[in-house]
């Protein structure tokens, strides 16, 4: 997931292209927000304003939707996003100790992004791969049966 500093013009063009492609029905709002989030890593104020204009939906509504869903972000995130499952099955399987190790290694608390913009550490609810808990996801890579000892090795895979 890369965060590029894009100028307003570029974002506006992208939003216009999406709306043209997918239509301006309100039902298309969440799919379009998905696309924007996927391209820029987050949904900026510029994107919300342009979307509001193109779809004739108040920006307050778009903001309320964008902040409601976990997979959408209105804040920039680091180059790599770690999602750690904190649901009961992973917790019972030893997730508590893995989480401790993870926060120590990164020096981050839940929801924080590192100063060098490399990592964002998030917790998530069940990811549906509970057979191999504890589970964490870095970007799109799923790691199962994670032990505290494995954490440094896993993190070193990312530049």
């Amino acid at each position, binding site marked *: 997931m890369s965060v590029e500093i894009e100028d307003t013009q570029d974002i506006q063009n992208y939003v216009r292209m999406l709306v043209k492609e997918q239509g301006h*029905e*309100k*039902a*298309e*709002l*969440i*799919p379009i*927000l*998905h696309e924007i989030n996927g391209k820029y890593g987050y949904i900026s104020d510029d994107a919300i304003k342009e979307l509001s204009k193109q779809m004739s*939906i108040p920006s307050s*509504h778009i903001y*309320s*939707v964008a902040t*409601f*869903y*976990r*997979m*959408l972000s209105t804040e920039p995130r680091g180059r790599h996003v770690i999602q750690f499952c*904190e*649901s*009961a*099955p992973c*917790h*019972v*399987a030893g997730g508590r100790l893995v989480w401790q190790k993870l926060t120590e290694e990164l020096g981050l608390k839940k929801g924080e992004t590192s100063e060098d913009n490399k990592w964002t550490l998030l917790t*998530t*609810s*069940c*990811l*549906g*791969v*509970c*057979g191999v*808990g504890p589970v964490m996801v870095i970007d*799109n890579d799923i790691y199962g049966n994670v032990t505290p000892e494995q954490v440094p090795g896993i993190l070193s895979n990312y530049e």
Partner: protein
Amino acid sequence: MKVTRSMVLVSSDPESLDRGALDVFSTLQKQITKFGMEEEISLTMISDIGKSVLSPLVLVYPDAVIYGSVTTKDVPKIVEEHLYKGRIVEEKQVSAYDLSGRVAWLSARKGTLPAENRIVLKNVGLIDPENIDEYIINEGYEALGKVLNEMTPAETYKVIKNSGLRGRGGAGFPTGLKWQFVSGAKGDKKYVICNADESEPGTFKDRLVLEGDPHAIIEAMLIAAYAVGADEGYVYIRGEYNLAITRMKKAIEQARNYGLLGKNIFGTDFSFDIHIHAGAGAYICGEETALIESIEGNRGEPRSRPPYPTTAGLWQKPTLVNNVETLANIPAIIRNGADWYKAIGTPSSPGTKVYTILGNVNVTGLIEVPMGITLREVIAIYAKGMKDGSNFKLAQTGGSSGSIIPASLQDTPMDFDSFSKAGVSLGSGALLIANEDTCVVDLAKVLLNFFRQESCGKCNPCRIGNKRGYEILSNIAEGVGTLQDLNDMQVMSEQLIQLSNCGLGQTAGSPLHDILSHFRAEVEAHVKLKVCPASVCPMSGRRAFQID
């Protein structure tokens, strides 16, 4: 739990005890030792398995043989003939039909091991999910042909109604009745929605069906649409399920190319097409009215009901919402008939249930078994016992919205009615099995943390109740809880259950309620003795939250 060759269970309800169950137990113990089989046969006094005129009962697994009216005199023969030589002592054997109460469900097994019986997962792992032809060869779209050519819409929902199929999303509402409601609702336009927003922690059964047999869902939605009179459908898949979304898209494309979706299917007047809507990460969207809000492009906040979606759902049109597992049963029921389906499972809950087995056991994974299997059987037979010889302490069913089931309920048949009588819930079919290293306060804290974050915030009882519940549990876990906190928890759980607007808040109260009713001593140890018996909680003596 050790891995043993056989399990012998002796009933211990008051009636059995009265009739000498304890003596039977100790004689069994002596005889088993006499034959030197104590390492290979486990002997357990099981909790109440229901009143029976034939008590005391001795159950032998894996053969699933029940001996009734057992006296100490019968024991040597049972041990020597059955356990040592492997021959069933027929004169003492009773058929499950003669039994009353909770053991009657054993009839579903016909005296055999509760074997897996795959209806929902019939094709999963056996066919190529990206090839429609493989689905068709395996009786695929046969049920659709049958309803379109031979049955009226009313006949179709009647078959489902007669089969006794109940919704597998957790609530257990009769599926055929729901279909009838939508069919009878007035409206020029109707929708069928497949709820594939599986986010219940510990549950991944729907993902396996979507990834392994997507055409079964398309076929079932077509049948449902025909029965209720809908011409448009949505599959709402949770956004994290990338592979499921890809496979479903491909399957829909293939079905369109074969003329199975679109206009005038099989040359009839019936037309139907399906869209996919990917979720964006919100547990609450599994609630059907929140899901509908989400498709419409809004925050996933549940609506007030009534009106129910069956009369005013998506864009205020009558809408049928069914879970993936529920739908996956439909083609088989249409092909084989309602009577065939009713013969599987228990009378109140026909059919099979897919369970995900998780936690401190030797084998985790997915099973599909007839309704009515017990936790003890799941642990011993499918999970191959507890990990590292540890002891079973509790199970948490149905993800976060299920119940915490203490070991004393491990012989209760898992079906909708037996569970609701025992005051617990089957939920979505996740079985998180925990050993004595699990602390109930810590577990409840994790569950409340989940609800606290996933609450949509629309109604006060849920938004505030979950936050306060989490804070109280955190304080107890730090060793600064008070007895007043326990009272507050009790009140809060009742308020959550009774006052919340939707199922999320209503089930969020159950962990608080469950730990107080089943594990009160352990919770009190945290408060009175400042000790966490499982040595899990931090017990720092510092308040995690200041509560006024």
